């Protein structure tokens, strides 16, 4: 958990970077999320006050776009690609296996806060289908059988 002070400072610096430009709200939220790894309620409230934008408008944006998370995510984001190419190559079996092995449903974070499992609609690595991205690593041509071994490398 981030302290109120860190959140305030992060928000202040980022708003300054964009000169408080209200049309840059999406970019501001992206930067805040990158710093804090999610969008805490305190950050949104702080942005609302500092930029004089109603909290409802900010909350609207934060819940509309898929990239934003209002909940803390795990250390690693596990994204199972559900692009068409991955789908026809059996991506749904990979997702089922991930859900079973991690013991969470898609969209949830494991109890130890290590992994957040999500589905992503096409990473554009169709030639490597099916793929799973864990953190920054794209794992190509996966079979469900290989997953446990790969997951053991993330600690």
């Amino acid at each position, binding site marked *: 958990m981030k302290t109120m002070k860190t959140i305030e400072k992060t928000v202040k610096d980022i708003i300054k970077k964009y000169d408080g430009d209200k049309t840059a709200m999406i970019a501001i939220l992206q930067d805040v999320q990158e710093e804090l790894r999610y969008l805490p309620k305190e950050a949104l409230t702080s942005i609302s006050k500092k930029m004089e934008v109603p909290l*409802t408008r*900010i*909350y*609207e944006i934060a819940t*509309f776009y898929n990239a934003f998370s209002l909940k803390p995510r795990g250390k690693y984001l596990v994204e199972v690609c559900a692009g068409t190419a991955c789908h026809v190559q059996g991506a749904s079996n990979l997702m089922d296996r991930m859900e079973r092995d991690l013991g969470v449903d898609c969209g949830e974070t494991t109890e130890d806060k290590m992994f957040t499992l999500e589905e992503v609609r096409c990473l554009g690595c169709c030639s490597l289908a099916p793929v799973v991205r864990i953190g920054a690593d794209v794992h190509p041509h996966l079979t469900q059988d290989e997953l446990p071994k790969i997951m053991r490398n993330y600690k």
Partner: protein
Amino acid sequence: MVNFIIDGKKVEAEEGKTVLQVARANNIGIPTLCCHESVAPTGSCRLCVVEVKKGKRTRIVTSCLYPVDEGIVVDTKSERVKNVRKLVMQLLMARCPESDVLKDMAKEMGIEPQPAFHPETDKGKCVLCRLCVKACEDVVGVSAIGLIARGKKKAVGTPFSEDSMVCIGCGACAYICPTEHIVMESFGTKRKIWGRTFKMQACDKCGRYFAPVDQLKFISQKTGTTMSDLVTCISCK
């Protein structure tokens, strides 16, 4: 002024008017849910669709947004129009099976619920017309409620579903709601809406509790009128 034909009738209308406005002025009934004279139309419910022929092209448009144009031919009751309205009504009835407003509208339009759509249980009577959000933002100028999420998870509410600190309890959202989804409870000195309880102001003349104190404070702040000038109700003024 522009001249065009609507349901076989020649009409004249001011430029900039929408087809819906002109239709209603000519006593042609078009059903709507998300349209209200005090806020800008959004075209979200799609009930008001009509068929418009412009030149060679015929298409379905939303009459609440479509501006009248010279020489267009409008059909408000074509088969395609009816098909869209039927689908919209059936979808909304499945979303809000409890809504009497929808049931009555459907009855009038001769539309039965679609048995293949499983009725939902958690949406209340909200059809997501967004009139409440618009009224709160554009008319009242408060933005206490907004739209949340997208797609099938879309909803209307306060941020984080918590009590709104900016809500003034004016009740505009409840008044404008076409399906009576937003509940406002009044009990004498108090009013309850969006989970918050507001203290009501008694009229200094007749003693009737006529408006939330927070609302009067908001008006005072916005207009510079003193509070003492605001504590008289409209009938005693």
